[in-house]
């Protein structure tokens, strides 16, 4: 079908197909349809194509990935090094590795504070570290992502945990969950001992309002030491 005829049918069906029109209007710079109104926003209309607008002012912007896309999420936070490897499997596909999924994690620092919560907003002189301990990675062919961070601290009312949000490759939410840590003698939680705070008043997994219903699916394997750093491994099955 010729474009002109195609456009005619669009207008004939305009009342019944507003969604289609809306879809067409989403990026006017790309359109090659002549405009009769002559309202140009940087470009000029000539015949059936829109001349590229003249951009005299630099800089020349390029598309950049979100600053969450990074494996080292430490920024300026200090603490015992933690390397977290998450494996995502697909519960709708015989628990096979899920490649290409987006995995967001976030957790609190050694003192139990998150970036932003209760902070002074974003008027930070050092905007490089304003999103500390937050990051996003895409799973590889083995369904794995690895983050470098610090061992989380704790705050009143919660056991040590890391937040996890898994999305499909297109950004659709598949699962919001949390990673729980083994506790008791010989565990990493005991070795870190709550950093400067100690563990007085610490909420154990059994008392935690998120984990008290059982942590079997959320409990990570954590090995290592305060001197060598800790390695965390966990597998989450999500319906994809």
């Amino acid at each position, binding site marked *: 079908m010729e474009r002109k005829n195609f456009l005619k049918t669009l207008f004939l069906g305009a009342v019944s197909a507003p969604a289609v029109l809306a879809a067409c209007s*989403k990026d006017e710079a790309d359109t090659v349809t002549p405009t009769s109104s002559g309202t140009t926003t940087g470009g000029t209309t000539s015949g059936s194509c829109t001349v590229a607008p003249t951009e005299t002012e630099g800089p020349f*912007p390029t598309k*950049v990935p979100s600053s*969450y896309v990074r494996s080292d999420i430490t920024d300026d936070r200090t603490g015992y090094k933690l390397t977290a490897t998450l494996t995502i499997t697909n519960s709708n596909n015989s628990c096979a590795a899920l490649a290409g999924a987006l995995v967001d994690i976030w957790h609190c620092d050694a003192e139990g504070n998150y970036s*932003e919560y209760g902070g002074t907003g974003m008027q*930070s002189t050092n905007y490089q570290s*304003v999103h500390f301990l937050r990051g996003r990675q895409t799973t590889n062919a083995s369904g794995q992502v690895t983050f470098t961070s610090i061992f989380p601290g704790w705050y009143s009312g919660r056991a040590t945990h890391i937040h996890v949000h898994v999305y499909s490759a297109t950004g659709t*939410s598949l699962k919001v969950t949390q990673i729980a840590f083994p506790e008791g003698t010989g565990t990493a939680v005991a070795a870190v001992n709550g950093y400067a705070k100690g563990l007085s008043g610490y909420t154990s997994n059994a008392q935690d309002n998120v984990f008290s219903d059982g942590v079997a699916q959320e409990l990570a394997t954590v090995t290592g030491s305060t001197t060598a750093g800790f390695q965390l491994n966990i597998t989450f099955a999500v319906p994809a």
Partner: protein
Amino acid sequence: MTERVITLCYRKIIDAAATRPWDKLVLEDTYNELRIQAQLYNPERRFRTYAELVHHVPGASQLSFLVSGVARGYLPQLGGLVPDVVDNLGRRFLRFSRFQFEIINSDLLDKSRHQVTINFFSDPLTWHATIENLLLVSAAAADPENREILTHLVPLQPFLGIYSIQTPAAV
């Protein structure tokens, strides 16, 4: 007049009317990121607009912060200069290092209603004089050689305000 040290704030609003490439990239990417991050506060997809989310869901006001992680990536492309604001010679000159990103309005199903703002806070300036609607300023850190200070004339304009005045140190 007495010289004073001030900082300026430029509130840049970006919405569907944006025409410049940088503005459009920021708009597009912050919209996509909002749709991703909003799912945390909207698992049952009960809410459609940003206003509804913030009104009904505790913690959803954090979305401006969470989405700012995307806008932040575009700031280095500005080369350290506040966009759009030019001096009386038509040149961008205003250095910044602080910013604040906010979502004004948005609709998870209608990109054309996505509207965001970036507040740019300038580095300190010495305000020497006011000539009609122009402020005569120079970088506060400037170290005058031969007693000559390079200055800019800044036209007062919408969305540009004086954010702070430094009080003189107690003697």
